[in-house]
């Protein structure tokens, strides 16, 4: 996916002017927030589990090499293979080569953000292998050739009318006058169409929510069952995932699983949590003949030990974006790359560069809600702040902002000058604003006064009046 994060301001403006998108986001707003809250209230240990999950993830990151080695050894012991990839290009080429070795014409795909990250679909298609997304939301946006707008509800920006139009355009062998008025009709149609794709696919590609060092298992969590059909019907199962997903044991995975669905959709448990361990065994009647795990670095190891170390705890639940007022205002596409919302504002600059993504860590009020709901306590606002430091050091931030802050710093570190200057300024502004109590426009404050009045100061500063009071008292 070609990033458009540098155009964030325009993207956001377009999103805000898009009546259609605003209607859909209006429906989205609050849904997951309320559901998560209810799920949390039903599990009194929720916050303790979050603390444990944080500590567990910290332990894993501090021993990442060891857990990855143990995981790899177990995969091999169970008859699977692990392929290590540093870059998106290496990962794409590896998957393509595995598909070619299997003589694959079509591959079915379960939802994978890492596959989005490495641009897998376009690459496979360019090289003669047809990828078919099978998560309903992913399928819809694949037909529309759009990127996902949310990491767990990728087609959240569309209405059922949009989906019906898309299906009519693409499912041309079905009767044109069929009824697609309800979500039920659309789900049924997708089910029937995709079922044949599952059966025809030579290779199934899924992501992984967790990798288990103890057993060499990969774990996927879904609600639709598409990830399972993707891995039990084709001859070859390829798992494409980030190397930070490894956890020590089945018990540790269980702890994170308790947090994942509750944080994401407010379900106590997703419908299908599947632990896959190697290819089919002697006597098995189904399951893939080959099992490959493609482990992608793509800059993750470069975050270890830096101020962004803790972002590697992320379990990709999406709670941060569900609760983000900025995400809720503009939707996911405005962020311009794979990961939107607060997690994207921290990850994207690391993965595609700060020059491209410098707006994202700025597009936050630091309201702190993302950190407050994160199941692994990632200090997202503080990490965005760290990006802003780097942005300023690299002089990527707007010069007016840097000069303005420099002036403020100069002025505010000289209290006598400051109190004198603000005293005069506020006396003047107070007089000017006195009649109306507010300004409809102020030079230099267009961003504010275009859409808001600027309340006028009372007139004179607190410090002036306090000094008067002290003089009187004294």
């Amino acid at each position, binding site marked *: 996916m070609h990033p458009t994060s540098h155009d964030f301001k325009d993207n956001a403006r377009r999103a805000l002017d898009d009546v259609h998108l605003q209607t859909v986001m209006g429906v989205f707003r609050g849904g997951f927030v309320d559901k998560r809250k209810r799920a949390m209230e039903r599990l009194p240990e929720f916050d303790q589990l979050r603390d444990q999950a944080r500590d567990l993830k910290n332990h894993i990151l501090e021993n990442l*090499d060891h857990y990855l080695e143990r995981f790899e050894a177990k995969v091999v012991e169970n008859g699977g293979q692990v392929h290590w990839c540093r870059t998106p290009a290496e990962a794409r080429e590896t998957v393509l080569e595995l598909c070619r070795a299997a003589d694959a014409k079509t591959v079915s795909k379960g939802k994978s953000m890492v596959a989005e990250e490495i641009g897998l679909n376009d690459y496979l298609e360019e090289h003669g292998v047809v990828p078919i997304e099978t998560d*309903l939301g992913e399928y819809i946006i694949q037909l529309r050739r759009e990127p996902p707008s949310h990491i767990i509800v990728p087609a959240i920006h569309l*209405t059922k009318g949009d989906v019906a139009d898309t299906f009519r355009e693409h499912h041309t062998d079905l009767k044109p006058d069929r009824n697609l008025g309800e979500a039920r009709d659309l789900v049924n149609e997708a089910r029937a169409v995709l079922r044949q794709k599952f059966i025809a696919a030579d290779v199934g590609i899924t992501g992984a929510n967790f990798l288990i060092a103890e057993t060499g298992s990969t774990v996927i969590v879904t609600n639709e069952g598409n990830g399972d059909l993707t891995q039990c019907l084709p001859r070859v199962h390829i798992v494409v995932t980030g190397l930070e997903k490894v956890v020590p044991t089945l018990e540790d995975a269980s*702890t994170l699983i308790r947090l994942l669905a509750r944080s994401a959709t407010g379900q106590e448990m997703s419908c*299908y*949590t599947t632990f896959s361990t190697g290819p089919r065994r002697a006597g098995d*009647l189904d399951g893939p003949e080959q099992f490959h795990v493609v482990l992608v670095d793509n800059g993750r190891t470069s975050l270890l030990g830096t101020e962004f170390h803790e972002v590697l705890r992320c379990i990709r639940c999406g709670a941060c974006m569900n609760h983000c007022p900025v995400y809720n205002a503009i939707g996911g596409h405005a962020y311009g790359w794979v990961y939107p919302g607060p997690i994207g504002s921290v990850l994207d600059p690391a993965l595609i560069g700060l020059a491209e993504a410098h707006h994202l860590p700025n597009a936050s009020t630091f309201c702190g809600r993302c950190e407050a709901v994160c199941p692994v306590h990632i200090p997202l606002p503080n990490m965005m702040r760290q990006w802003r430091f780097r942005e300023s050091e690299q002089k990527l931030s707007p010069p007016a902002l840097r000069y303005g802050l420099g002036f403020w710093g100069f002025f505010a570190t000289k209290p006598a000058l400051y109190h004198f200057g603000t005293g005069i300024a506020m006396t003047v502004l107070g007089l000017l604003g006195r009649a109306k109590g507010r300004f409809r426009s102020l030079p230099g404050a267009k961003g504010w006064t275009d859409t808001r009045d600027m309340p006028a100061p009372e007139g004179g500063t607190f410090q002036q009046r306090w000094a008067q009071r002290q003089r009187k008292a004294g």
Partner: protein
Amino acid sequence: MAEISHSLASRSAKARAGIFGDIRAALKPMRTEGAAATVVDDRIARHPRNLVPARANLPQPEQVALFIAKATEVMTSVERVASASDVPKAIADYLKGKNLAPELRLAPDPRLSAIPWDRQPTLALTSGHARDRDATSVTGAVAGIAETGTLMMMSGPGAPITLNFMPDNHIVIMDPSRIVGSYEDGWDVARTRDGGAMPRAVNFITGPSRTADIEQQLQLGAHGPRNLHIILVDQLDRGDQGPSESDGSSA
């Protein structure tokens, strides 16, 4: 199995060396070398439990009640019958109630073949992995997990996993004594089977397949079953190789 090319293997080896080099360099200031590997091996060997919610910690009869309540919440239907000989009628009634054809695709599981199916001659039975046109499957389950009404399935010759996902309707036959409290309890059960070897697939199933990808409206039967029906059969495990604990020793 197709040959994986030499270039792929050598690229992977090179990437692996780079990745491990970077990880170790980055982590060096954060840890005392040497100690880490022992801690890691110990954690894997002991697989200690983290916090298990109090909800899961109940006497077994109450776990059964919690399992049923939680399964029902996620739109799994549950019924309980006294013995294996009641199963054919229960299934026939269930299919009739849903207006479904009396055709079943059975997992090749000895526990299921021991059921006296001839009591309902109208039921047409075949056995094996799932095929596209199979409307209704019948399988066993290794355990039920009370905390979220979750079924724990393990793949094997008697448990093809396609039966869990392809048909529109999935019927699960399970002795209620297999219901445990937590996921961790489920793993304890798993570790007693087949000498503790992890089967190719373990499926935790919590309700019928669903999606809310279109306008956040919940729809059942996205790709997997629209209906998930559990028949708890008292004494089902008595007389055969017994409940799960003894499976390992008989293997």
